[in-house]
């Protein structure tokens, strides 16, 4: 009681409070509960509003293009002919490149942070990763345009072309802005989230697992592989899918480096376009109704894909671990 008083009320306020607060009123209780419930339900309402707005905004386009919208690759605002295939392709390929780069790095970092690193280094490293997560997308894009692209164009891309030029993936002219550059910048954007969620997952692996493996004479790596990683497999998969959700919706940074050309090319050196970047670039220029409708439909496709990936990720994470995992996402 003493603790409560000193923690909550200053000594001067203590006397007045009894008068202020009595008598208790049932009405106030009910009203407050309903108020907070209403505020809590806004998240549900928001999901509904987003879905409804997108569907309403694109109804004409859906009627006019039907399922062809998803399967055709013309994007011709002048002839008012719209197909989203190049954007869907660009989104999937750039996200896939990002995952290929980010997943091994993130999970290895998470392993380092929970299993291997000296204790004193762990917290500073986690803070640095949180700082990377706080860097806005547009600033990473700025860095991408002026630092990363020229560097990629001068060194790694020609090298890749010399080594793997015989595959269609790394052939053709090198401009700098490209699908590969887009994938790399998305990888940087999703490194922190996959790392921090994986770290929470690995932390939730019971120590008994590790102790049992150590007791059998396993080395550190064997403990990590056998007792930790295989135990956490499902949760780590959830972390990866969560990263995929972020990658699919990533907008500014990728818009600034991917080249923004609606085409489907096998070469990763060729420019591409993503669902999010076509909205960012063309939305305020959409002069005709059907053009705007087509962009709303692209938004609907993007919303559908990201909601689905997020649902899957959350379900995987929920079965794996407690509150810690969702905290890491914030």
């Amino acid at each position: 009681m003493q603790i409560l008083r000193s923690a909550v009320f200053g000594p001067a306020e203590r006397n007045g409070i009894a008068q202020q607060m009595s008598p208790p009123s049932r009405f106030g209780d009910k009203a407050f509960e309903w108020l907070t419930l209403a505020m809590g339900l806004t998240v549900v309402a928001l999901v509904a509003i987003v879905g409804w707005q997108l569907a309403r905004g694109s109804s004409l386009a859906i009627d006019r293009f039907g399922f062809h919208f998803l399967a055709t690759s013309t994007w011709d605002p002048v002839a008012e002919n719209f197909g989203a295939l190049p954007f869907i392709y660009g989104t999937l390929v750039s996200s896939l490149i990002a995952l290929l780069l980010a997943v091994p790095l993130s999970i290895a970092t998470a392993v380092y942070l929970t299993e291997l690193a000296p204790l004193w280094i762990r917290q500073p490293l986690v803070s640095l990763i949180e700082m990377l997560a706080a860097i806005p997308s547009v600033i990473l894009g700025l860095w991408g345009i002026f630092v990363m692209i020229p560097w990629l164009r001068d060194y790694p891309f020609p090298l890749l072309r010399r080594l793997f030029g015989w595959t269609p993936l790394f052939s053709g002219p090198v401009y700098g802005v490209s699908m590969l550059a887009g994938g790399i910048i998305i990888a940087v954007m999703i490194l922190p989230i996959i790392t921090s969620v994986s770290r929470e997952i690995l932390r939730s692996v019971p120590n008994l697992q590790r102790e049992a493996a150590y007791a059998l004479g396993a080395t550190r790596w064997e403990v990590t592989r056998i007792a930790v990683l295989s135990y956490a497999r499902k949760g780590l998969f959830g972390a990866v899918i969560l990263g995929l959700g972020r990658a699919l919706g990533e907008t500014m940074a990728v818009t600034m480096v991917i080249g923004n050309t609606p085409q489907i090319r096998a070469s990763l050196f060729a420019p591409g376009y993503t669902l999010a970047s076509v909205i960012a670039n063309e939305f305020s220029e959409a002069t005709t109704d059907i053009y705007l409708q087509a962009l709303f439909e692209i938004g609907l496709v993007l919303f559908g894909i990201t909601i689905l990936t997020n649902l899957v990720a959350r379900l995987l994470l929920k079965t794996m671990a407690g509150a810690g995992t969702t905290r890491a996402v914030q």
Partner: protein
Amino acid sequence: MTMSSSNNHRWRKAKSAFASALAFVAALLVIAPLGLVLFHLIRSGASSVNWDFFTNLPTPVGVVGGGMVNAIVGSFELLALAALIGVPVGVLGGVYLAEYGSARANAMLRFVADVLNGVPSIIWGVIVYGLVVLRFKSFSAYAGGLALGLMMIPLIMRTSEEVLLLVPTGYREASLALGISRWQTIVHIVMKTASKGIVTGILLALARVAGETAPLLFTAFGNRFWNHNLSEPIAALPLQIFTYAISPYDDWHRQAWAGALVLVVTILFINILVRFLTRERIARVL
């Protein structure tokens, strides 16, 4: 036999050391972009961050100098509008989750809030465009603030819930035992005790949306001059950085770097401040 088993052991030890080294290199690679971005921001931006930058309006193309004062002020106005929407809804929603909801309802709401957190920020721009800009036929500060505010709701809701749950149940019981009604207990005891954590969560959410560009592209839209009316387009720092970065002018590129440096320093400052100021316990849940 002993020979091969000791060899085997050495091999396994070597493999373990190798894996540890790889993990260490991975960790270095993960934080490398942070170092590189900060290095280039300072190298290319520091020289253009000067008095003019904080006091002058942008100059027309070709005129050297000028600053981003309108964008800096605009960003703060947008954040204030966003907070008007995001803070009450988020905090009270968090109160419901922490104090009232049944386990089932809470699991559902948390799930939806987390899924909402994963909605790409550009989608919020599209939605607010449909809800506000189309209706009032004008890009506006209100629209930009709404887009950012909606993004803040799930963020604040989840952090508020977490810090409210840290308040010991004994506090609530003691207050109720004194005859204080439930809602007054929550407002005066529980929320007051957790106020520092709630404020921390709000600051982090603000820092998060402060750098958002995509939701502002076709809501706040940007403005090269002062905004005198919130129902008109308004400049924002991230938008200005984007416009300048993709422009063909060297002078604008310099300004973009300067703006980026100011934005990143502000955001990282809030993040670091928040983490240093909050007690260990709160810092961990956030």
